[in-house]
């Protein structure tokens, strides 16, 4: 550490520039990770935040809720007390009397006596016997909707009053509107049927139907896996680019120091001692860059508009940070090889 710290202190400009570059790269990685998470939540939060373990779907529905259709006969046949119905209808709504502002939403028809009943942040919850009232995602509040507003389903012209708001529940990038089964019938295209039966417990295979877990359902939410795939690709490339960029930087710095490394080896420094010095330098610089970029990311999180969903929880932030430290250490491999190859004899005979 002695050499590492002395050198950092002496070559402030060089190492500040390096810190800046690593800061920018880590910031970009954290930012895209946050956006990917934000988009993922927009796609799945209405499903992922529930306690659902298993979904029973119609056969051949390709693990998509919207492609599954269960009739009353099906429900009788499946006959499992742990299961509760869930129907999703993706529609467009408008405020009563305002035809110009339409919003795409997802109607979730649920049993309000079941575990699917949403928690309310503001206003009142509804029950299975409530008439003409719905509970909606906080996201609709960002679009200017308030408690007591009337919303109209543009397909069926059914009208509902907003009774309360849940937190940011969304499905396939649309805010969720929860309604009970009676009101669900009024917007359904196939009244008397439901999409799926869900359970808090793991359900064994049901003959004649498909049983899948939550992760599979989420992967098959329209657009979800494609979108996450692209973002994951970007993040992976950023990591790969980081390894190369940092590797080149550290290598150039090491090359520049080769004569000194030869001298140090001649006066008795072991390769391990010099390698540890480089590694501690790398960890210090990367750590510093990460601290700065974490502060920036937290600031960014506060100022980003709701239209740019951003989510970076502490575990993911820490995971990304530690991954980057590993990346930085990996990038020094070529430099470490170089250090091991520096010949102490080079110090003799002048230059």
């Amino acid at each position: 550490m002695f050499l590492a710290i002395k050198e950092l202190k002496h070559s402030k400009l060089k190492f500040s520039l390096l810190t800046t570059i690593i800061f920018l790269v880590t910031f970009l990685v954290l930012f895209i990770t946050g956006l990917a998470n934000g988009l993922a939540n927009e796609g799945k939060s209405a499903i992922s935040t529930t306690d659902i373990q298993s979904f029973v779907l119609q056969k051949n529905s390709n693990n998509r809720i919207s492609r599954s259709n269960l009739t009353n006969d099906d429900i009788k046949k499946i006959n499992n007390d742990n299961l509760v119905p869930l129907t999703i209808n993706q529609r467009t709504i408008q405020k009563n009397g305002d035809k110009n502002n339409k919003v795409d939403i997802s109607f979730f028809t649920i049993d309000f006596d079941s575990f699917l009943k949403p928690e309310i942040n503001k206003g009142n919850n509804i029950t299975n016997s409530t008439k003409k009232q719905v509970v909606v995602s906080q996201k609709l509040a960002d679009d200017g909707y308030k408690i007591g507003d009337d919303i109209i389903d543009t397909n069926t012209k059914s009208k509902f009053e907003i009774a309360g708001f849940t937190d940011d529940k969304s499905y396939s990038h649309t805010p969720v509107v929860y309604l009970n089964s009676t009101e669900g019938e009024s917007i359904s295209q196939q009244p008397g049927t439901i999409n799926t039966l869900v359970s808090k417990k793991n359900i064994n295979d049901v003959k004649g139907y498909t049983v899948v877990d939550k992760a599979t359902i989420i992967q098959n939410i329209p657009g979800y896996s494609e979108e996450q795939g692209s973002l994951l690709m970007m993040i992976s490339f950023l990591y790969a680019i980081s390894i190369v960029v940092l590797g080149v930087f550290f290598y150039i710095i090491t090359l520049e120091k080769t004569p000194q490394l030869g001298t140090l080896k001649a006066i008795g420094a072991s390769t391990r001692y010099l390698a540890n010095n480089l590694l501690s330098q790398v960890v210090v610089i990367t750590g510093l860059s990460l601290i700065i970029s974490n502060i920036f990311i937290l600031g960014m999180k506060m100022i980003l508009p709701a239209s740019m969903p951003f989510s970076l929880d502490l575990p993911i932030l820490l995971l990304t940070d530690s991954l980057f430290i590993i990346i930085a250490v990996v990038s020094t491999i070529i430099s470490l090889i170089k250090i091991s190859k520096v010949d102490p004899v080079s110090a003799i005979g002048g230059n």
Partner: protein
Amino acid sequence: MNALELKNITKTYSDGNEQIEVLKDINLTVKPGEFVAIVGPSGAGKSTFLTMAGALLQPTEGSIKLSNQEITSMNNKDLTNIRLEKIGFIFQNSELIPYLTAQDQLNIVSKMNHVADYKKRNQNLLAEVGLNDQLNKYPSQLSGGQKQRVAIARSLVNDPVLILADEPTASLDSKRGRQVVQMLQTISHEQNKSVVMVTHDERVLDLVDKIYQIEDGALSAN
């Protein structure tokens, strides 16, 4: 006990199919407190001689003993330790580390030797070479002569058995060059250290105890 003992040292390099004998059957003993100069034209094998005596390279044949310890059979790791513990180097262009202050140039050696409470002692070493006002100066702030004096102080940090100086006057004018060699003489005689200096600066040869000549890889007393 001899500080340095070279017996029948031969070093050959292969250049294509040819074997080049850089050092031929060299014998040399240096006693504690002895100041020895090795002179010779460039290409005669002075540098190669220094790398052997300095435990940087192993000879092709022969034996090298450093305070009676045979080093010719050692691996690289042990040689590194020998250099760290027993040898002090003074290089041609002083070769100080650019980002260390004068006293840190010495402290790093103490650190590598895992010595505690080195600070005061190293400051004294710098004071002995007349640099007590330059303790916190970086090499870029020191003159050539001052740098070479830091290098001398650095070579003493590990209390070495042997000090090897590679053309220590090469980058200095005659006055400062002579001061540096006088300093080496004082260290050798007063601290009972063996100093071997490779040089082609004939103006300082009156300060040494023995002069050896290397020519075409063979060593002879002058």
